[in-house]
């Protein structure tokens, strides 16, 4: 557990007016603040349909019956409590370049948890690398936030990322569809797009938050470099100059674009976040623009 809190009180107060948003409608429990296209036992009128045997008589529109002598049933919008799950990358790549990414990702996760807690949403947070890690359950209102923050602070980074294994385990664990927020640098040597697509095809709505350090996108070094992969330990020796830096940045941007395209194509959302950007600007700027929160 870290000695200093991940988020300060002033910042948390600013977060209280926000709410996590999702675009798909999921069948779920009544409650919450996101409207659903499914009819059910809600408060707000949706439509009429013919009465069938066994329907609840309390929903019959008796005024229409008096006028038309036919039984019509009023249908209401369901306000479901959609399951929100958050996958936080705790692989070794998050600790490269001084560990800024890992700290930033934890603070971002804590912020979203607090937003959910204020709106009485239930959020399950999992750290992951090559499998799902310990679960941190965030529900029950804002007074439960210290427990969540302690759980996030206690997370330890390490291991190599294996998105396919993680997605397979996730689907096996959670059959109920919902919103899946993935906070990661998405830097694995495999093909994480395929795994994410698999998750989306299963019916989950994806919110991908790609966190990178400045060194990840534009390495500042020049000359002869001896590189080592933080996750796999693989090495590479190369000469690196300005031209090579441009090629590197171009490749990085293409990869980020590919993840973004995959997210949008599957009805999800994507935000690329550099750790040099203040967290407050990201929450109240990028995440609101992408309609991840409102």
């Amino acid at each position, binding site marked *: 557990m870290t000695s200093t809190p991940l988020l300060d009180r002033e910042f948390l107060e600013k977060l209280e007016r926000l709410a996590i948003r999702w675009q798909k409608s999921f069948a779920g429990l009544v409650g919450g603040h996101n409207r659903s296209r499914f009819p059910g036992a809600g408060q707000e009128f949706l439509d009429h349909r013919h009465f069938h045997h066994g329907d609840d008589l309390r929903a019959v529109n008796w005024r229409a019956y008096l006028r038309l002598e036919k039984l019509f049933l009023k249908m209401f919008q369901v306000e479901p409590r959609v399951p929100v799950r958050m996958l936080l990358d705790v692989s070794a*790549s*998050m600790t*490269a*370049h001084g560990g800024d*990414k890992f700290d930033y990702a934890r603070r971002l996760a804590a912020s979203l948890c607090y937003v959910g807690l204020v709106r009485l949403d239930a959020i399950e947070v999992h750290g992951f690398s090559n499998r799902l890690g310990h679960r941190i359950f965030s529900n029950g209102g804002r007074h439960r936030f210290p427990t969540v923050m302690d759980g996030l602070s206690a997370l330890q980074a390490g291991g190599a990322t294996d998105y396919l294994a993680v997605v397979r385990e996730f689907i096996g664990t959670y059959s109920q569809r919902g919103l899946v927020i993935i906070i990661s640098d998405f*830097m*694995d*040597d495999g093909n994480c797009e395929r795994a994410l697509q698999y998750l989306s095809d299963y019916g989950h709505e994806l919110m991908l938050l790609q966190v990178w*350090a*400045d*060194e*990840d*996108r*534009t*390495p*500042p*070094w*020049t*000359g*002869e*470099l*001896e*590189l*080592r*992969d*933080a*996750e796999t330990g*693989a090495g*590479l020796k*190369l*000469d*690196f*100059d*300005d*031209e*090579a*830096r441009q*090629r*590197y*940045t*171009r*490749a*990085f941007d293409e*990869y980020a674009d590919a993840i*973004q395209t995959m997210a*949008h194509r599957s009805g999800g*959302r*994507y*935000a*690329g*976040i*550099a750790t*040099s*950007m203040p967290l407050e600007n990201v929450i109240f*700027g*990028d995440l609101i*623009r*992408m*309609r*991840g929160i409102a």
Partner: protein
Amino acid sequence: MFLLNLSLLQFATLFGAVSAISVALYLLDRSRRKQVVSTLRFWVAAEQPAVAARRRRIQQPWSLVLQLASMLLLLLAIAQLRFGAIEQAGRDHVIVLDSSAWMAARSGNRTLMDAARQTARQYLRALPARDRVMLVRADALATPATAFESDRNKVEAAIQSTQPGSTALNLDQAFDFARHIQAQSGRRAGEIAFVGTGRTAERDPGAAAPPRNLRVLLVPDAVENAGLRKIGMRRSAADPDLWEIYVSAHNYGPRARQAVLSLDFGPPSAGRMAAGSRTLVLPPGGDAEASFEYRTAAAGILGVRMTPHDAFNADDQAELELPAQPRLSVTVYSNEPDLLKPALSASPRVSAAYRKPEEYRPNDPGLVILDRFIPPQRPAADSIWIDPPALGSPIPVRQTVEQVPFARWDAGHPAAAGLRARDFKLDHASVFETAPGDGRIGEVDAGPVIVARSGKPKIVVFGFHPALSALRYELATPLLFANLLRWVSPEIFRRWEVAGGSVGAVRLVLDDDTAAKDVTVTAEDGSAVPFTLRDRTLDFFSGAPGSVRVLTGDREYMYSLTLPQLWDTRWTPPADVRRGIPRFAPSLAPAADWWPWLALLGGAGLLAEWLLFGRFRIARFVSRRRLVRRTAEPVEVGR
């Protein structure tokens, strides 16, 4: 062509070191940098084509060559490369001006210092204008008055403001200093010109020979001087009010002299009374001593004068501060004062008053002795309680014993120092319950019967009456009382020695039993004076007139160092040394100064190298700009 600031060897060493550092940094910069990254997938795409890598390796050695050439130019600029004959370059001279105490002596209608200043100015004006000059004032310490200066006015002002000091000339140290400072200046060494009388303190026979570039400008002096050299005073061991005074005088001249020593004494502000006089016959170059005795218990100033005066008045008179003789006032409350009178009348520094217990006053000063008597209010001063009743004893009585043999003395406590008597019995004694920190001076087997409690006020308690017990027959009794009085008021029994002498180094041989931790040396303003203590010999140095106190346990030495320190020997310069005011060759055309151009070229070379090969810096700058631009852009989301 020559280097003004550095020798060729120094230049080669410096350039070698700089080159080695440059090559090492170059190789380090070009060596592979080890880095841990998040993933290698983008690096593979950024790998450098082989053609580009080969081209860069060909170009990189030129970067090193350019760096080394630029460093060479900058070093040449620092070394002040000059074209032309080396003789055209200026030289650095040092004028060692004698500022010893003897320079205050008069020679005709002016002092020796005036003559030395005039000679130094003449020498200064004879030097070529391109030369630089440093003035060093030399007495016991060599002190630079200026840096190497081209501005003659500054040096002249320093010469003019030079005044005679209080110490004798240390010529060897002055020459060493001048030689050292000349070697460090980096320019061509000029002359070391000594201006003075050459009368020095005692010289070390193993001292180095005078420098080869020495020029001697001796100031003639007529030595007809006799003066005080040392004054010593101490209180007589038999009579503490009697001062024994010892005065030593020295005749520096070649003829015998007769002089009158006169003493006077009085308070600092009021007039003084004559305290004695004596006529001395001083042999040529020899010493004569005289002894005086003067009785006083008061503090004051003792003046010593020698007449008739001569050309150097400063050593004809001295003043010493005499401390007062303090006394310890003891008040004894007893119905049988005769029992204690022998013990208290032994010391002349103790004045005892005897009163009945009914006349008790709690505010008596000094020391209070309570004989088998508990007062209604404890005394505010230090006190000795003799056989107090158990109820009211300042130290609780644990038990009472009878017919017990005395067991032991606490040899570690100052109040029991030197006490040996043990073969006696106590008919009746109280054994005390001591607290931590209490001194158990005397004990029987059941516990302490004489206890000393330090603090403020100090308390000593006897569990028996020493004059009514078997102890009264022992030699230890007066010794025990003397120890107790000394322990209670150590400042009263401190022994004083007063000495008058000349400023400079002072050596003092201490008593055998003096512990190094008990020694403190302080100036008259209370500041600590550095000293060394080897075996029993204490040495310290005082460079200015004043008084110095040396405290060693129960002994205090007061040094009134008001006499000037005069010379011991006359230095005879070697025959081959240059003398007199020189005539230098007329000024030649100055050698060409190239260092600004060399510095500019060196700087330009480094700049060019940075622009051409400083890929690391440029790349970092570019990457930082791009990074800033990227992070400032809003990220495309929510499409």
